[in-house]
């Protein structure tokens, strides 16, 4: 079970993440996108979901990642992400509830480039009962 005291907490990413051309190329290839100068709209899930897993499975927070399904996802893109971008992200646990034994947690990741917000990404994750 998620520690309810963690709701509302924001966690800073430890390192900045550099978006490489090869990872944008690989993502574009899967969806058939020819323009690899810009990351596709959902590309940053590659960064944010990894970050959410690292944070939410910490012993003091306690989410069970093995029973997790993705409930919904939203991106707001203020500036397109490009290969070579150095991004810093922080994650906030926005809400948490339990319904019919399922745990439902919404987390937001804010990705910054040069201290400017470029993408906010919300994931609602469901831990099945």
């Amino acid at each position, binding site marked *: 079970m998620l520690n309810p005291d963690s709701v509302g907490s924001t966690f800073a990413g430890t390192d900045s993440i550099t978006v490489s051309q090869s990872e944008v190329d690989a993502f574009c290839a899967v969806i058939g996108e020819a323009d690899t100068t*810009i*990351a*596709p709209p*959902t590309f940053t899930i*590659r960064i944010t979901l990894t970050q959410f897993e690292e944070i939410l499975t910490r012993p003091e927070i306690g989410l069970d990642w093995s029973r997790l399904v993705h409930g919904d*996802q939203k991106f707001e893109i203020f500036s397109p992400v490009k290969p070579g971008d150095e991004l810093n992200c922080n994650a906030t646990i926005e809400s948490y509830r339990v319904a019919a034994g399922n745990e439902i947690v919404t987390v937001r990741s804010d990705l910054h480039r040069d201290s400017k917000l470029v993408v906010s990404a919300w994931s609602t994750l469901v831990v099945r009962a």
Partner: protein
Amino acid sequence: MIEVGANLPEKVFYLDRELLKRYADASGDQNPIHQNEEFAVSVGLPNVIAHGMLTMALVGKYVSDFAGGSAKVVEFGARFTKPVIVPADEKVDLTVTATVAEIADGKISLTLSATSAGVKVLGMAKAVVLQ
């Protein structure tokens, strides 16, 4: 001229196990429910299912194509209502359509529909693109 209420052309994407493996590598999401049938069944799924985010990435491609490039997509959201089931040695469809919901302030809002084998797989799917 794009008008509110206009229906955009349908596009069909095809998914197979190989694409799921490639998406797993490209996204970093190596959850075995998207690759290993025995594991997927053991956790109560009917078969291997596609990553919800792969479905969304393909719908994102549809949105980017409409908008004239990835750089024009400013909002994109969806709920994962049903899984896309991907049996071995089969190609399954992901059929995408959209309706223009609003045009305002230099932006176009789309209501998106995505089905696989006739089943709606995304709910509340919406995107906003720059005009």
